[in-house]
Structure formats: C-alpha cells, structure tokens
C-alpha cells in the first residue's frame, strides 16, 4: 500500500505545466524520429539528453518517456506506407501493414497501429508501476555474487538470443567488453587502457559511446542519400471504413503480455517482441493464410507488442541497473547525468522522481494517441524532409550535446570516433546493441565477481550460496539450452516469416 501512496504523491508533479509540456514535445518529436527511417528511439534520446541537462529531472524524464513511446509508434508509419520500417521494431508491422496500404486501407492500418501502440504502452507502463517497486525491495537482497550471475545472465542472452549471426553478435559484445575495461579499476585503483590520457581515467561515458554508435551512422547514411524516400509513394487517401475494434481486444491482451515479458528479459528488444507476437497471432489464428496479406490483426499484434516492450525494459534497468535494451541503456545514462543511480535507493530517496517517471510513461501512452490522431497527416510529411537538411542538424546536435556532458572536446572526438566504428559495423551488418549492453554488463560482472571473492576471501562456494544465485543460474542454463533444443526439434520452431 505504501507503493500506492508513493504513486499518488507523484501524480501532482507529473501534471505541472513544465512536465506536461515536456511530455507533449517529447511525444511529438518521438513520433517524428520513429517515422524517419534510420533514426531510432535510442538515437533520439541520446541526441536530446544534453538538451535536458538544465531541466529538472522529472521534466527531462517526461520528455524522454514521450520520445521512447512515440518513436515505437512512429516506426509503423513508413512501415505501412512505404514498406520501410522506421525503426527496427517496426519490421513486423510491414508484413500486414504494407499489404493493407496497397489495398487502399492505409488509413485504417495507421489507425489500428496507433490504437494498438497506445494500448501496448499503457499495459507496459502499468506493468512497470506494479512490478518495479517490489523488485526494488528484493534488489536489496542481491549480493555481489547475485549481481555477478545477473550480469552473466544478461551477457548470455546477448550472446545466444540477440543476433541472427552469433559470431557477429559476439564480436560486437567483445568490442563493448573492451571499451568497458577502460578507466580506473574500481577494485584496486589502477588505471587500465588509459594510455596516460587523463580524460580516459574515468572510463568512457556511456552517453559518449551511445551517441557515437547510434546518432552518427544514420547521419552519415542520410548525408550519403542512402535513406532517401520516394515521396510520390506516400498516399493515405483511403476512405474511412467501419471496423470492429472489439475484435482486436484478445490480440491486444496476448501481444501486451508477450511484449512485457520480452521487455523484462535483458538483450531482447521491441523487434523480437513484435516478431514473436505476430508469429503467435498467425499461429493461433483459425485462418492463418490471411496473415502477411493485409490482416488488421497482424498490424495490431506487431504494434501492440513493440510498444508493450517499452516500459517493461525499464523494470530491470531502474531496479537492478541492468538495461533491457539499448534504449534503456541511454535512459540509464540520462538518469546518471541527473545524479540518479539505479537501484533500491532510487525508490526511497528519489521516490517522487522515479514514480513520476513511471507515470510519465503511462501518460505519454495516452498523449501519443491524441497527438498521433491530430498529427496523422503532418507525420506523413515528415517523411518528405530533405535528408540534406537532417544530417548536418543531427551532427551539430550530437557535437554540442556530447561537449556539454563534461565540457570536453576530447569526448567529442571520442564520440565521432565511435561514430565511425558504428558506421563500419553497420556496413558489415554487425549489430551495435550487444556492444552497448556489454559496456554496462561487463564491468558489472567483473566488479561483482571480484567483490564477491573479496568478501568470501577467495571461497568460490560463496558464488553459489544464495537462492537468488541459483535462480539466476537456472535462467542462464535455460538461455543456453534453448537454441540447442530448438535446433534438435525443428518441427516446433516458429513458423516461417514471409
């Protein structure tokens, strides 16, 4: 009951003019970012974090919540109209959304997408509000050994589940592990891989890395004209039609649960949630042949699931410091910039901010529906923005933004360097997300292990002495066995995608 009082206490803070305006602006920008192919929620938040430095923490977080939710929906606009997913999470929306648009039902597809996205976000935010506080209380019971296994679990899921090509996924994760080693070793105070550069002693700031990896490559792509869009194909002239919205309720329920569960598991993102939900919808349908050919339920399942993933990824991030995906990692960075450290203390000392943030995730889900409705036509025009204008804008904002983190030109250079690496990685289709998660999870695993061994004075049995450790070890076992089991029994593998 204490939790409900805390939530109620945060309500007035969320409905101040300042925070509300920030949420509206964030959501509006988020949808636009999502709609632009190549730009993702991660990039949008990373670029805009420095803008939020001067704001109060809750205002900043409200804006971030808006961008996060908005971008997840925005990705469906080009997915439906142009067959190009605006964000990776929009991929499953293409399957049924684009055929619908070709049948002249583009407007209905967009409406379904918007409604499903809002409902997914709402469910996810409720899950966050209900699950995070109890988990935060349990988090106090997590000792160094448990944190070690938690980080190992995160690293395992990255390695096993994240990439279609495990070798490329591992390569990216190893890059992240190496970057994570830079800086002063917390346990013995010795500098590692700093090359006598004082700026590196504190390690690579997560915002510097994220901005480099996520904002620069799309900007280069835009500048090269790679993401140019043929504006003449944009057509949402479809006539309004009657639609039995109630028929989507079971779809929404199922997809929301899938999205939330996927969100909580580290390393799985909205794209996985959307694909799984779409597959499940097709598998369980009476007439599965309609899917992939313009079934409204397919759009609803995909969009609802990728939005249900949003707030859920924040559950492990806020309570344990383990981000569910790259967006959650940037949000962790934003929290740190505002002096908020994830963990149980966040829920006591900064309860109003953290509950306020969760509420903004809930409120922006609703705002998204209103803004998406009012601005439907406008957002289609966002797709016509000349890329020659966008690329320099993004580069300028990232440079100013990264400079303002520590007033350091060195970090700007570092960010641009990471940008080039990120661009090269994308060219070789090496995923960047494993690198980002490894930067956070690698040092966490190392420090926790060394701390555990210090406490136990070298006794390895300490690592398996708590029930939490055993639960995590079991999860690690399941994560490793799953792909093997799937390979051995191909008949239960997920149905093929179109």
């Amino acid at each position, binding site marked *: 009951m204490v939790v409900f009082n805390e939530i109620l206490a945060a309500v007035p803070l969320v409905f101040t003019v300042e925070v509300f305006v920030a949420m509206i602006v964030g959501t509006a920008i988020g949808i636009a970012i999502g709609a632009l192919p190549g730009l993702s929620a991660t990039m949008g938040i990373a670029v805009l974090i420095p803008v939020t430095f001067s704001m109060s923490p809750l205002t900043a977080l409200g804006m971030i919540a808006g961008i996060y939710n908005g971008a997840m929906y925005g990705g469906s606009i080009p997915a439906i109209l142009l067959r190009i997913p605006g964000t990776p999470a929009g991929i499953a929306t293409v399957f049924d959304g684009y055929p619908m648009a070709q049948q002249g039902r583009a407007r209905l597809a967009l409406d379904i997408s918007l409604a499903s996205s809002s409902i997914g976000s709402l469910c996810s935010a409720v899950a966050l509000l209900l699950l995070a506080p109890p988990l935060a209380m349990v988090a106090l*019971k997590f*000792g160094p050994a448990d944190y070690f296994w938690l980080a190992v679990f995160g690293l395992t899921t990255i390695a096993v589940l994240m990439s279609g090509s495990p070798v490329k996924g591992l390569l990216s994760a190893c890059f992240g592990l190496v970057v994570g080693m830079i800086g002063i070793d*917390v346990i013995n105070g010795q500098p590692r891989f700093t090359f006598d550069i004082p700026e590196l002693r504190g390690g690579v700031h997560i915002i510097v890395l994220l901005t480099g990896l996520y904002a620069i490559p799309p900007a280069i792509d835009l500048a090269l004209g790679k993401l140019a869009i043929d504006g003449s194909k944009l057509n949402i002239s479809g006539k309004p039609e009657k639609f039995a919205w109630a028929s989507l309720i079971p779809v929404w329920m199922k997809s929301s649960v899938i999205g939330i569960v996927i969100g909580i598991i580290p390393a799985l993102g909205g794209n996985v949630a959307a694909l799984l939900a779409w597959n499940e919808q097709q598998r369980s349908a009476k007439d599965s042949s309609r899917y992939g050919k313009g079934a409204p339920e397919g759009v609803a399942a995909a969009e609802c699931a990728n939005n249900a993933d949003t707030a859920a990824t924040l559950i492990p991030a806020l309570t344990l410091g383990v981000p569910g995906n790259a967006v959650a990692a940037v949000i962790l960075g934003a929290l740190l910039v505002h002096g908020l450290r994830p963990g149980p203390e966040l829920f006591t000392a900064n309860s109003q901010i953290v509950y306020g943030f969760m509420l903004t995730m809930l409120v922006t889900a609703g705002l998204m529906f209103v803004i998406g409705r009012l601005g439907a036509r406008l957002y289609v025009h966002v797709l016509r923005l000349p890329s020659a204008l966008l690329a320099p804008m993004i580069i300028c904002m990232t440079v100013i933004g990264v400079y303002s983190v520590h007033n350091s030109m060195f970090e700007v250079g570092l960010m641009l360097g990471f940008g080039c690496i990120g661009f090269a990685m994308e060219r070789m289709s090496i995923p960047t997300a494993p690198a980002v998660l490894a930067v956070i999870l690698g040092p966490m695993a190392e420090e926790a292990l060394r701390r555990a061994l210090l406490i136990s004075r070298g006794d390895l049995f300490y690592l398996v002495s708590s029930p939490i450790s055993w639960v995590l070890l079991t999860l690690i076992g399941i994560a490793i066995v799953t792909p093997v089991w799937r390979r051995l029994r191909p008949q239960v593998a997920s149905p093929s995608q179109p």
Partner: protein
Amino acid sequence: MKTIMSLIAGVAVSVLAVTPVWADYPERPIKMIVAYSAGGGTDIAARTLSQYIEKYLGGTIVVENKAGAGGEIGFGALANADPDGYTIGFINSPNVLTIPIERETSYTLDDLAPVANVIYDPGAFSVRADSEIETLADLVEFAKKNPGEVTYGTTGVGSDDHLAALAFQRQAGIEMTHIPFKGNVDVRAAVLGGHVMLASMNVSQTIADHREGTMRLFGQMSNKRWDGADEIPTFKEQGFDIIMGSDRGMAAPAGIDPAVLAKLSDAVGKAMADPEFLAKAKAQNLPITFMSAEEFAAHLVKLNASYQKLWDENPWSGAK
C-alpha cells in the same frame, strides 16, 4: 621569430599586468572551476555559495564544470591557470592531495593557493541496525577475535572513506577486509542487504538512516560533533585520534597576488556567514566549516603529510 614575438608579447602582458590597481578587482567575470559534473554535490554547493560570494566581492562568478578522472582534470586546469585572480576553483580533499601521491599529475599541492575551506564532512562508521556492534570498542574486540572477518564498504580505493578506515586499522591494530564500491548508494545497499558488515561513509550521508533506525552510526571523525549529528560521539571521545573526512574548499593558482587572495578569502568568509546562505546550506544538509586561507593551507599541508606517510608505509592502491 615566433619566440621573439611571443617574448615581446609576454613582456608587454607582464608590464600591463603589474600596473592594475587591485582595489578595482574584480573588473571582469571570475571563472570558478568545479572538478565534478553539473548537478553533483560539489557543483550544487559551489553554485549555491557563488551567488553569495558575488554579493560580497562585487563581481560575477561563472561556474565551469571540468569533470573527469576523479577531479584531476579540473584540479590540473585550476593549478595551471593564469594566477590573475580571475580563475578560482573548488578543491576536494582527499582527492586533490591523494591523486598526486598515487601518480604523475599535471599539478601538486604547491601549485595551488588555498583561499578558504567551505565544507568539512567528517568520515563515519556505521553498521546495520541489527548488528551487535554498538561502539568502536565493540568493533575492535570483534575484529581482534576474527581477523579479516570484518568487511567494510567504501566509495573506492583512495577515497576518504578508505583512507579513514586504513588509519583506524593502524591505530587500533586490527585487520579488516576492504570492499570498494562505486558510490555511497551502493555501499548503503550492501550494508542494508547484509552483504558487507561495516560502512565507512561520511556522516552527512548516513545520519538520515541512523535516525530512521535502519542503520547504526557509531562514530564521526571530527574534532567536535557536527551540528547536524550532535548525538553521535566522535572517534576522539571513544579514544581514537582520527580526524578525517572530505573537505570542499576553494583555491586559486599559486602565484596569485596576496591582496587579491585576501580579498577573495574575506568575501568567502562573509558569504558563509550570510544568514540566507546558512539557511540554504541547512536545507541541503551541507556540513559547512569555514577556514581562512592560512588555516586551510596549514590543514592541507598537515593532511598531505599524513596521506604521504600512509602511502609510503603501505600504498592503498595497486595490484595486490
């Protein structure tokens, strides 16, 4: 050619620099370097205080954050700035002293001219409320019976918390196991969760938990009890002569005109006596302690000697 030109320029500048009437100081905005990120504890304290220094100094102060490497980047920038009185900064002990002891740096204590001390946050020991340890004597007794069994959490290798615990171990003749964490939030969680026995954490960070009854604070390392925690006995009262903690004071680059230094120090003193500032400091739970330029300089020299001695006997950082 270039050298000659710069020589001429240098001479010209120094001639110009000698002439100003210091009575007019400050004639332009003063830059205040804070070696930690915006929004952090030092930054908030600096920004709060700077408004009141402006009031008594009669000029504007612009805070500039130069964070990184535990403060080294900001301290180095301050020490190597032009000592014209227009660059001042916050220095935090023990970092400002221990970093040059631990490694090669772009500055030493001699490159800094202390202006005044602002904050002294005494170190303190605390345990979870259900622990059997209630006094320092209990702790020493337990540690003597079980050498190495007492685990203590700190905010890192070479932090004031760590050095304080090292000094205590030496004085009490006991052995404890150091568990470094990244911040006081983590130390607190580890002690509350029962993973680490003892927290070596500043008194201002622990007093709230003590009063809530979740943790027991049983000693603060100050000369006399801090007003904000006057129910907590000092280490001295319990028979251990340990005065350690973290200072946040102000300094200018060495070589600053003594008249300017005096003017600055005086303004800081007046600002810290301003009732409005005192009210704000209380609201932010800042343990403020003013020291004049001479007192602060003497204090830093003494601290530096004790850290150097600790290091020479047994370096606290480095691979073991």
